[in-house]
């Protein structure tokens, strides 16, 4: 019902703003055209070598053979570190909004059976992607995404925790990526190499360690984000301020971005 009134309201306001939206459309079309022209000019000017050649030239000293992984975890590792922090920040933001809504139905036998096949497969594939990232397309993000997807499936199958451990362990897994990354960086700095400056000899292993931690962190963060709230645990018993924990009895599917049936 609410969605219907909302749709009607939106339709009315859209009607009212039709002229305005037409104007916006014209302006944006102009903007798009101008940007295309500029983009064309930039492409033409960009005959100068960008960073590709240099990136390939330096590849042997990076500890990995896949150039994209080299950029992500060596040349521009600092970006990747911060990006893990972004993911964590988003999750912490989600957690700060309150506990997750309960109320998933247990899956039927067919789905449960499928889940018990798919989830291990996803985890194994994730591990493979993680390892192969050193040579070919793949790496921590892809692997983490698969782990996250596994969590999503488990949750859809009815586990309110999406297969994640309790809150305390979950917190450690979440911070593992950034923590290992930063500590490796700081450790290298203390031993004189400079922050995130891997000595070529051990670069491969350092990167692998970071990637493993990052994979876990990303997977857990994605799954936890899908759960959509603080994990229900002994530490987070519903308090007076978490009224929504008590009142949220409707199916949570309305609140979470579940795929349409």
């Amino acid at each position: 019902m609410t969605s219907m009134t909302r749709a009607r309201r939106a339709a009315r306001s859209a009607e009212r703003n039709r002229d305005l939206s037409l104007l916006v459309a014209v302006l944006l079309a102009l903007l798009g055209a101008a940007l295309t022209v500029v983009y064309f000019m930039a492409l033409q000017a960009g005959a100068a070598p960008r960073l590709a050649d240099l990136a390939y030239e330096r590849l042997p000293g990076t500890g990995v053979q896949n150039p994209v992984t080299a950029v992500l975890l060596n040349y521009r590792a600092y970006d990747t570190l911060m990006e893990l922090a972004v993911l964590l920040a988003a999750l912490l933001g989600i957690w700060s909004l309150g506990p997750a809504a309960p109320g998933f139905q247990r899956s039927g036998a067919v789905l449960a059976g499928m889940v018990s096949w798919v989830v291990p497969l996803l985890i194994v594939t994730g591990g493979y992607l993680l390892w192969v990232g050193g040579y070919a397309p793949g790496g921590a993000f892809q692997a983490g995404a698969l782990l996250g997807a596994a969590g999503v499936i488990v949750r859809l199958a009815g586990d309110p925790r999406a297969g994640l451990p309790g809150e305390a362990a979950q917190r450690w897994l979440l911070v593992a990526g950034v923590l290992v990354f930063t500590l490796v960086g700081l450790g290298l700095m203390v031993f004189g190499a400079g922050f995130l400056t891997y000595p070529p000899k051990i670069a491969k292993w350092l990167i692998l360690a970071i990637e493993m931690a990052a994979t876990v962190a990303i997977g857990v963060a994605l799954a936890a984000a899908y759960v959509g709230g603080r994990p229900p645990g002994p530490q987070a018993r519903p308090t007076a301020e978490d009224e929504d924990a008590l009142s949220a009895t409707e199916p949570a599917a309305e609140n979470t971005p579940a795929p349409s049936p």
Partner: protein
Amino acid sequence: MLTAQFLYGGAGLVLFALGLWSFLVHEPLLRKIIALNITGAGVFHVLIAIAYRGDVAPPDPVPHALVLTGIVVAVSATALALMLGARLQDAEEEDRRR
């Protein structure tokens, strides 16, 4: 080579403009969030297009890495926006019930 890059990147710019339009004119939150993602995807397209260096030379890895990073950032922001939206909807419904 230039043509391919131009067409692919140009499509990205079209996506950018479309997303922007949708973000500006549509009221519902979900549409705004999707619009933003389209806008971002447009920019990622441009980055992928410029990484292309012809059929022989391997692509420039730097823009690829940037896109990967950008995607994770976009996913994170989208997740937070969705949850804030859900929380807002809860609050509005609570208000209405009172």
